[in-house]
């Protein structure tokens, strides 16, 4: 009994100190970001690694999500004789929810894990410690460029996901099933608002970019410097980042769309 209470107490104490540590690292990271303005090349390199290489999986997933939305949406709408609203259904689901959320989940799996593993292995190989010995701040030289690259790449990827998804819905709905093309686009344009739907989706994806990239980098930075520790950190990145994205999505939807 006392043992259970003790372990609960330890868990609370460790969680609180973890949250504090993460917050401190976050502010240290923001403080170390100023130097990037002088060396934007560091960020460009990382955008290439994080963004360009994620492009294919994001675009293909977007296309297939669009296909499925077209098929399933048609199936349901057809029962009520309102297939014309298919375009609206596809575009609204993509720009408001699926675009940012699915992109963030894929991003956590594709880019987040590689960031964690990279930083974790740098730490295991004592490269970060070596940098500090040479008076180079690893937060500024290694972590900050990756962080801002993730924050920049994420909304771009989400926009591409949504756009490709709309095209996927068009291919299935109009070209394959034969929904009227004019009403497909006009219903979409009548129902999707640039600020309320599209811009809010972009805001969501920026927030997710912050959450996923920071989780990945923090897990790598704080990983046990052993092969097993890096493996665990990578797993934690996916779990924590995915849960954070889903939770933040609920919060943002409740704040912005209600």
């Amino acid at each position: 009994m006392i043992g259970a209470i003790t372990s609960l107490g330890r868990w609370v104490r460790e969680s609180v100190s973890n949250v504090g540590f993460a917050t401190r690292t976050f502010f240290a990271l923001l403080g170390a970001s100023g130097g990037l303005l002088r060396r934007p090349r560091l960020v460009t390199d990382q955008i290439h690694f994080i963004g360009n290489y994620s492009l294919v999986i994001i675009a293909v997933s977007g296309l297939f999500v669009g296909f499925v939305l077209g098929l399933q949406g048609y199936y349901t709408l057809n029962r009520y004789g309102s297939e014309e609203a298919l375009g609206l259904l596809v575009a609204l689901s993509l720009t408001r929810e699926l675009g940012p959320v699915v992109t963030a989940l894929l991003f956590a799996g594709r880019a987040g894990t590689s960031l964690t593993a990279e930083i974790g292995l740098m730490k295991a190989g004592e490269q970060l410690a070596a940098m500090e010995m040479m008076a180079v701040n690893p937060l500024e030289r290694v972590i900050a460029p990756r962080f801002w690259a993730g924050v920049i790449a994420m909304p771009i990827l989400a926009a591409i996901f949504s756009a490709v998804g709309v095209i996927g819905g068009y291919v299935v709905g109009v070209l394959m099933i034969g929904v009227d093309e004019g009403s497909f686009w006009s219903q979409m344009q009548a129902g999707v608002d640039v600020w309320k739907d599209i811009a809010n989706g972009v805001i969501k994806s920026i927030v997710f970019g912050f959450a996923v990239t920071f989780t990945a980098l923090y897990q790598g930075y704080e990983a046990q410097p052993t092969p097993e520790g890096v493996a665990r950190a990578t797993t934690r990145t996916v779990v924590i980042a995915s849960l954070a994205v889903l939770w933040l999505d609920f919060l943002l939807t409740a704040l912005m769309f209600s």
Partner: protein
Amino acid sequence: MQRKSLDLWVGLFVLLGAAALFFLAMKAGNMSSLSFEKTYPVITKFDNIGGLKPRAPVKSAGVVVGRVGKIGFDDKSYQAVVTLELESSYKFPKDTSAKILTSGLLGEQYIGLEPGGDTNNLVAGDRIKMTQSAVVLENLISQFLYSKAAEGKEGEK
């Protein structure tokens, strides 16, 4: 050389993102209906606006001539006050009447303007006096049932 090609790819990536956003705004969103033409406000009052929303189109003879601006409520006359933003290039006579119509059976609601014969034109801040409210389905059904019931009684006599 390698540096340059890397920058090129990153540039292409960012451009692709911008293009995707542009596509969403123009093709999927209502960005294309935002016009930067000058407008003048005209006020109308309706007994019931049904499901009319701000930014709904204002049409005359089926052509979009403006957008619905603000929708408010007047607690003196208990009517809805709708501000129409008409494009400055279109002039309408003073005795124009406004109706709330629906595109299709279940489509969005819009305002239809029917020009009258007055020689003076509407200017900014004028009020359109003749208006016709939105058709509310429940009222329509109750009228129908009422007239059916009345018919039934006449048949009994």
